[in-house]
C-alpha cells in the first residue's frame, strides 16, 4: 500500500505534464560562505590530499565502504566520479551540476543538499584504501592490484583490551568528510554513497563533532569528552620537515603509488563517562599527566612546554609512570609522531542508560609499524586510562597522494 503521498502514479502529473514538460529551472549555484574563516581556501588539488593537514574543521562524517563489484573498470569509474564530486564539494559547490534544485524538475536532484539558503561551506574530502581492497580474506587478488599492496597496509594487530565489533571495523574504502556544518559533512558522504550505489556499499559510518585535535598552530588545542586537552604534541601543518619524516609516505618507502600519501588509523574509543565523572580531579590529572585547567604537564610550565619525565614531586615522578602523556609521548616510542585528527562522538545512550560517547580517533602517519602500532601497544599495556575507555572499532587505510588537477583522480597511480 502507498504510504507516501507526494509522488507516484496517482500524483505523478502534479507538476503538469503539458506545456511545461521540458522546463528546467536554473538557479544560481551557491557561493562559498565568505563569513566563515575556516571555510576559506581549502585547496582540493595538490601534492597531498585535503583533509589531513588542513586545519581540522568542527564536524566529521567518516564512512567505510565495501566494494561490491568485481569489475575493476567499474571501480575505476567510481573513483573518477567520486573525485569529480569531491573536487566540487571541497570548493563549496554541490556534488553535481544543477545542485539540489537547479536541474530538470522531472529528475531527482543531482545533489542531495544542502537546501538553498543554507550557506555552502567548503568541505575537505579524503579517501583511503583498506587492505581488503587489494586481497580478499582468501588472499585472492580482487582488482589486479595485490602486487601493489605495501607491506604496511595489513590488518592492524590485535591489542590487549580490544573489544572490536567487526561490523564497524575495516572496509575496502574510506571517506573522511569534514566541515564546520554537520549537514554539509553528512551530505558529502550521502552524495558519494549515492554515486556509488551498485559499486560500493556503506559498511559503517561515524559522525563526529568538536574536533579533539588541532592540526595547525593557528588552532587552540580542544578538549575531549573527558574534559582534557589531549594531543598537544600533535604534528601540525607548520611542522615542515617533520611532516616528511613522520606523516607523508616517501618515495623509497616501498609503494610508489602511495608516495605523498599517508596511512590513516581509525579507532572508535568509547569512554565510560559515568565512572570518569566520579573520579577525583587529582586522579584524573594523574591519569592524563596533565593539569585539567591549562593542559600543562604535571612537571610544570605551560601547555606547550615539554613534559619533564624525570621531574619528581615528593619523591615520586611528577608525571606518573603510567600516565597517558608519558606513554604516548614520542620520547617513549622511539620518536613516533602522529598527526591526530579525531572527533568526539555521542551516539545516544546504550540500553543501560549510559552515554554511548567517546573519541573517534583518527591518526595519520608515514608508517603504522613505527607510528600507531607501537604507541597503542604501550598504551594498551599500561595506560591507566584503559579503565575508562574501550576500543570498539578499528580500521587502517592507505590514503593516496593528492589529486594533481582536473584530469587526475583518486588512486590513478594505483590503478594505472
Amino acid at each position: 500500500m502507498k504510504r507516501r503521498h507526494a509522488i507516484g502514479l496517482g500524483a505523478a502529473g502534479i507538476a503538469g505534464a503539458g506545456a511545461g514538460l521540458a522546463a528546467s529551472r536554473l538557479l544560481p549555484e551557491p557561493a562559498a560562505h565568505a563569513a566563515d574563516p575556516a571555510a576559506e581556501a581549502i585547496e582540493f588539488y595538490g601534492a597531498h590530499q585535503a583533509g589531513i593537514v588542513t586545519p581540522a574543521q568542527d564536524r566529521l562524517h567518516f564512512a567505510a565502504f565495501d566494494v561490491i563489484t568485481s569489475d575493476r573498470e567499474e571501480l575505476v569509474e567510481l573513483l573518477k566520479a567520486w573525485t569529480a564530486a569531491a573536487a566540487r564539494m571541497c570548493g563549496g559547490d554541490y556534488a553535481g551540476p544543477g545542485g539540489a534544485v537547479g536541474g530538470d524538475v522531472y529528475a531527482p536532484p543531482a545533489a542531495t543538499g544542502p537546501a538553498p539558503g543554507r550557506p555552502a561551506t567548503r568541505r575537505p574530502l579524503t579517501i583511503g584504501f583498506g587492505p581488503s581492497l587489494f586481497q580478499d580474506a582468501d588472499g585472492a587478488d580482487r582488482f589486479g592490484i595485490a602486487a601493489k599492496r605495501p607491506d604496511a597496509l595489513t590488518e592492524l594487530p590485535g591489542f590487549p583490551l580490544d573489544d572490536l565489533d567487526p561490523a564497524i571495523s575495516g572496509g575496502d574504502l574510506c571517506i573522511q568528510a569534514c566541515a564546520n556544518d554537520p549537514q554539509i559533512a553528512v551530505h558529502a558522504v550521502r552524495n558519494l554513497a549515492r554515486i556509488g550505489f551498485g559499486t560500493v556499499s556503506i559498511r559503517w559510518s561515524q559522525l563526529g563533532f568538536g574536533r579533539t585535535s588541532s592540526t595547525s598552530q593557528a588552532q587552540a588545542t580542544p578538549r575531549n569528552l573527558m574534559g582534557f586537552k589531549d594531543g598537544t604534541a600533535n604534528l601540525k601543518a607548520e611542522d615542515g620537515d617533520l611532516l616528511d619524516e613522520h606523516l607523508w609516505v616517501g618515495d623509497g618507502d616501498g609503494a610508489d603509488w602511495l608516495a605523498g600519501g599517508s596511512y590513516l588509523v581509525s579507532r572508535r574509543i568509547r569512554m565510560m563517562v559515568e565512572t570518569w565523572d566520579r573520579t577525583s580531579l587529582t586522579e584524573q590529572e594523574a591519569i592524563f599527566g596533565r593539569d585539567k585547567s591549562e593542559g600543562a604537564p604535571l612537571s610544570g610550565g605551560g601547555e606547550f612546554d615539554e613534559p619533564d619525565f624525570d621531574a619528581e614531586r615528593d619523591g615520586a615522578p611528577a608525571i606518573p609512570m603510567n600516565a597517558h602523556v608519558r606513554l604516548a609521548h614520542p620520547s617513549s616510542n622511539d620518536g613516533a609522531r602522529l598527526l591526530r585528527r579525531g572527533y568526539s562522538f555521542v551516539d545516544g545512550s546504550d540500553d543501560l542508560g549510559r552515554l554511548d560517547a567517546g573519541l573517534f580517533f583518527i591518526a595519520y602517519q608515514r608508517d603504522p609499524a613505527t607510528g600507531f602500532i607501537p604507541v597503542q601497544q604501550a598504551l594498551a599495556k599500561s595506560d591507566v586510562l584503559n579503565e575508562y575507555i574501550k576500543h570498539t572499532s578499528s580500521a587502517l587505510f592507505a590514503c593516496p597522494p593528492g589529486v594533481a588537477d582536473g584530469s587526475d583522480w583518486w588512486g590513478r597511480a594505483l590503478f594505472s
Partner: protein
Amino acid sequence: MRHHRIAALAAAAATLAALAACTEEPADDAADGGPIEVLATDDACDVAVSEAAAGTVTFQVKNEGAKVTEFYVYADGNRVMGEVENITPGLTRELVVELPAAEYETACKPGMTGDGIRAAFTVTGEAASLSEDEALQAAVASYKEYVANQSAALVEQTGLFTEAVKAGDIDGAKALYPVARTYWERIEPVAEIFGDLDPKVDAREDDFAAGPADPAFTGFHKLEYDLWITGDVSASGPIADQLTADVQEVVARAEAEELSPLQLANGAKELLDEIATSKITGEEDRYSHTDLWDFAANLEGSEAAIASMRPVLEERDPDLVAALDERFAAAWDALEAHRTDDGWRFHDELTQEELGALSDAINALGEEVSKVAAVVAQ
C-alpha cells in the same frame, strides 16, 4: 490530492490528444494457416513455427504439464508484446498479439516464475516506424495491456484465495496468498491511484489505531493475520468477500484510467521504492514472511513499465537503457539466489548480509530508474 491528479491527467491527455490511435494492421495470421500451436509442459515449450508475417499473430497455448503456466512474447529487452496468464493444466488459451517485423522471443513459464523456457521467434514484413509521439502512445498502450493481463489474473487468483479462506482450507489459502498478491504487487502503482480502495485491499495493522483488532482492518493482510497468527478463519468470510469485491472494483477502475508516460516512469520507480522500504524490511508480509514473492512481483512490474517505454528510451538515451538492463539483471541475480522449488525463501530465513545484498542491488537499480521520468518528459 485527487483534484490535482485529475487536472494533471487532463493535461497529460491533452499532450497526447494529437496522437493518432494505435495503428491497426489487418489480421494476417492466415498467411501461416491459422493459429500457431504452442505445446507447454513443465519442461518444454514447443512453438509449432518460429516465424510469422508482421501483423496480428495468434498463438494457441495448450498446457500439458502439471504446473500452471504462462505464455509470453518478448521484444528486445524483455518488453512484453503480449502474454496469456494462468493457463491451468489441461487448458488451452489463445494469445492474439500485434507484432511488427522484428526479432522476438517466446516463453512458457511453468509455475509462473522465472525467465521461462525461451525460443527465438522472427517476424518479417513491413516494419512500421513510429514517430516519437506514437512511440510514447504505444508505450502507454503496451503497459495498459500488461495491466489488463495482470488484472485478469489478479481477479481470478484473488477469487481462488478468498474461496479457500471461506472454505476453511487454511493450507490451501496459505499457498494461494503469495500467488494472488503477485498480480497485485506487479501493478500496484495503478491500484494506488485509487486512494480509497488501496487501503481496503492492502493496509497493514499499523495503519489502524486498534491494530489487528480494528474493525476497519480489511484486505489481504487481515486475512494473512487470520491465516498465520490466529489460524482461525471461521469469521473471515465477510473480509474475504469484501476483498474479492474491492479487487474487482480496482480492476474495473484501472481499465477506465488513462495513463501518461510520466506515470509509467514514476510507477516503475515507485515499485522499487516499495521493495526498498517495505519488502527488504519484512514488514509487508510480517505474518507469512512471503515478502520475496512481493519483491519479485514489484521487480517484474517495474521492469514491465520500463520495457514498455524501451523504444522511446533507446531513441533518446541508449546509455540509460544499457545501464537499466545491467542493473535489472543484477537485481534479478541477487534475488534468484533465494528461489526455491515452489517460490521464494521466507523473509525470516534470510541473513542480514543477504538482505544487505538485496538492498544494494535495489538501490543501484533505483538510481537508474529514477532517471527515466526526465527522459520521457523531454
